[in-house]
């Protein structure tokens, strides 16, 4: 019986040790303030028109854009990597492009990976779906964006519209330049993309198909190749000679709804986006 008493006491000790923490209402959250910064973070979401939870993720991205309009670039990527998430609805546009499949595979995406998922600056995170991976569930996008914003940029990017009367209306020309803010000791690559907002089409949203859903930040094309091109970073405090890119606006894209996105990343890790920029085609420059 003495042994029984000892064991019951031990059991109670285990239970007492195994505490439970209840957070009362009013104490469950606190506001966060991120100071002024030149950092522009890139949030890329893998999404699909038949992905029922993707609109929830898109709303989180939208909230973040509202919070940090000058410090966040969002790109919505539609690929064919996971089953039927991206299958277009009959008679509607197919948003899928092959470059997205390459990005997905490069960050460890598999056919069983559920959508939505995303990447913030294509950086490795302890919040990733796989340990020390890159792909993130959308519940941690805000966390990762804030973390990235708190890190000062090592470089900056500028995009300018270039007026060229010789080009047809369907072609736009932009010039992209980079500025070194700190010394950089690795190879750097530049990617230029075109995204489009305001595309009305069908989307499955929490089990219901909405035929009038507004698709935003849809990645239409990667202008200079899937993985971009190598750039030589200038001396600290200097800005590089601008590189020009001609972008053809193809049917049914709407030029006024399009924006040019540019970002630079670490070529050696094929990730770790250092800075991003976005220029709506209705504006002249990101300066």
């Amino acid at each position, binding site marked *: 019986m003495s042994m029984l008493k000892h064991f019951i006491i031990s059991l109670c000790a285990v239970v007492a040790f195994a505490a439970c923490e209840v957070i009362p209402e009013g104490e469950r959250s606190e506001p966060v303030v991120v100071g002024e910064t030149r950092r522009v973070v890139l949030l890329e979401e893998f999404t699909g028109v038949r992905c029922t*939870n993707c609109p929830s993720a898109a709303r989180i991205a939208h909230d973040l854009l509202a919070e940090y309009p000058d410090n966040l670039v969002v790109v919505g990527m539609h690929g064919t990597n996971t089953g039927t998430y991206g299958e277009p609805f009959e008679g509607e546009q197919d948003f899928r492009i092959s470059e997205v499949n390459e990005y997905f595979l490069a960050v460890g995406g598999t056919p069983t990976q559920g959508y939505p998922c995303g990447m913030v600056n294509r950086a490795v995170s302890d919040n990733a779906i796989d340990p020390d991976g890159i792909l993130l569930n959308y519940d941690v996008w805000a966390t990762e964006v804030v973390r990235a914003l708190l890190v000062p940029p090592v470089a900056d990017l500028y995009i300018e519209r270039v007026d060229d009367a010789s080009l047809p209306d369907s072609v736009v020309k932009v010039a992209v330049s980079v500025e070194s803010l700190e010394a950089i000791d690795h190879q750097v690559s530049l990617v230029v993309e075109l995204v489009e907002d305001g595309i009305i089409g069908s989307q499955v949203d929490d089990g219901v198909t909405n035929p009038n859903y507004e698709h935003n930040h849809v990645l239409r094309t990667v202008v200079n190749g899937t993985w971009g091109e190598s750039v030589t970073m200038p001396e600290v405090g200097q800005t590089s000679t601008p590189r020009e890119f001609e972008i053809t606006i193809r049917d049914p894209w709407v030029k006024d709804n399009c924006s040019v996105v540019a970002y630079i990343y670490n070529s050696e890790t094929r990730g770790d986006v250092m800075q991003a920029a976005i220029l709506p085609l209705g504006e002249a420059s990101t300066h």
Partner: protein
Amino acid sequence: MKRFLTTLLCCVLLSALGTAQAQEGQGVTLSGSLQTDMLFPEVDTLIGTPDHYDANFLSNTFLDLTLSSQYVTAGARLELLNNPLPGFESAYAGAGIPHFYVTGRYKMVELTVGDFYEQFGSGFILRSYEDRPLAIDNALRGARLSVNPYKGIRIKALGGMQRKYWNFNSSNGFGFDYSKGAVMGADLELSFEEWIPQMMENDYRLLFGASYVSKYEPETDIYFGGVDGLQRLNLPEFVGAADFRINFSKGGWNVLAEYAYKANDPSFDNGYIYKPGSAVMLSASYSQRGMSFLVQAKRSDNMSFRSSRSQSGSAAFINNLPAFSMTHTYALAAMYPYATQPDGEWAFQAEARYNFKRGTPLGGKYGTNTRITASYIHSLDKEWIRGVGGVYQGTDGYTSKFFGFGDDMYYLDVNVEISKKLHRTFQFTAMYMYQIYNQTVVEGHMHESNFAGAKPGDLVKSNIAILELVYKPISKVGMRAEVQYLHTKQDRGQWVYALYELSLFHDLMIEISDMYNIDETKQHYYKASVAYSWGAHRVQVAYGRTRAGYNCSGGVCRYVPASKGLTVSYNVNF
């Protein structure tokens, strides 16, 4: 491939040694098992395989070894999963010895140190287990103490870190990475019939059980946006859960009532709300020779309980909610398997079996077995609450009336089965099933059907007919054939399936099968296999196509992508 074959050869030699060692009367015995499944994949884009594979050879191999003596048992498992079979999450790949333990027992006490599996009650608050086809292994690494201090009293206390794929690396070789959380728990079971002789004499049994589990996970930064700006959540580091159960039985009757409660546990699964979770289950059954029935009901609400709050997929679950849908073995009946929804559901299940005795009009010469089963699962009625910034995160999420049903049916399954022997050499089984399966809820998306007469929708409604024939002319030769038909106007439409199996001399089995989609893809999923058993060994070689779909067991499912190629499986127990 060369390294794999060398390792496999060592495993086979070890198993041979173990077979020689495993003799009764020895002080220490070595036992174990070796299981290896190999695939040589081929590209077949017509059925949706990837357009390339990174490796020419994929395999899952497991070697379990156990040393047993009167007072001590020790075991370890070697896993070779460098290039796992298709469909497993990328973090599943790896190789090493992720499971080892030592158990000592003396009189009323048993202590296990290392990796172990455990379940409290029905698993509402704790179930760590291994299910290889589903890639589930949520073993706890730590210690477990079991004490039977007196007859009818069983006490357990445990604590440890939960396995999540290969979270043991060079900086964390023993897996004790506290930054990833810990699980602690205790369980008490009292069997009253052990103390009250009159109960035992009259075949009454009464069990009372109580359990408590707590998980610890350090707080992390989780932010959410809203109209009031960015907010950071104040997350609980300790989350506790309790379970109470009563099980009463008398003769063929058995009644189980169980209730579980989980305190606030904001996580990715529930959208970071602070609502407590609960589960309640009531089950009654009766069985006697020739007949049995079962009815049960369960309501679970916000009972996803993981050791990692940001985890998705099938990893890091501390608990397991019992499945209330039947696990079907016939191919077309298993085409739309239901996965238990962790955010909540009402579930009902009933089953009745009856054997018409031989010599009766419906029993005939050899008797007739009948079975009727039904499952019905529905969403909960939820009224959502908006909090800071107009979002749900940080609030209690929703209110839910206990008996309230939501708008969505999740699953319905009614099936009738008859098995009858017509001759000493011949018997048949016939089954009809009506099924409704909410594809959007279970799979996350609805397939937009593309065939004449299609009526696409979230609910896939199917009528399924199955006929199985077994013919055994002599004791060493047996034949089995199946014909199955599935009719639906949703998803990919109608399917038909046929199988023929020949078994010879109890050791050799040859099988061919084909599954064909009539309406949309019009693809054949053929397969041929040969299996041979000798003693404790079994080897199977197969070639063919595998359809993309879901592999489910106990309400937990894993997506399996389409594949084609040669598969070789070998297993041995020693």
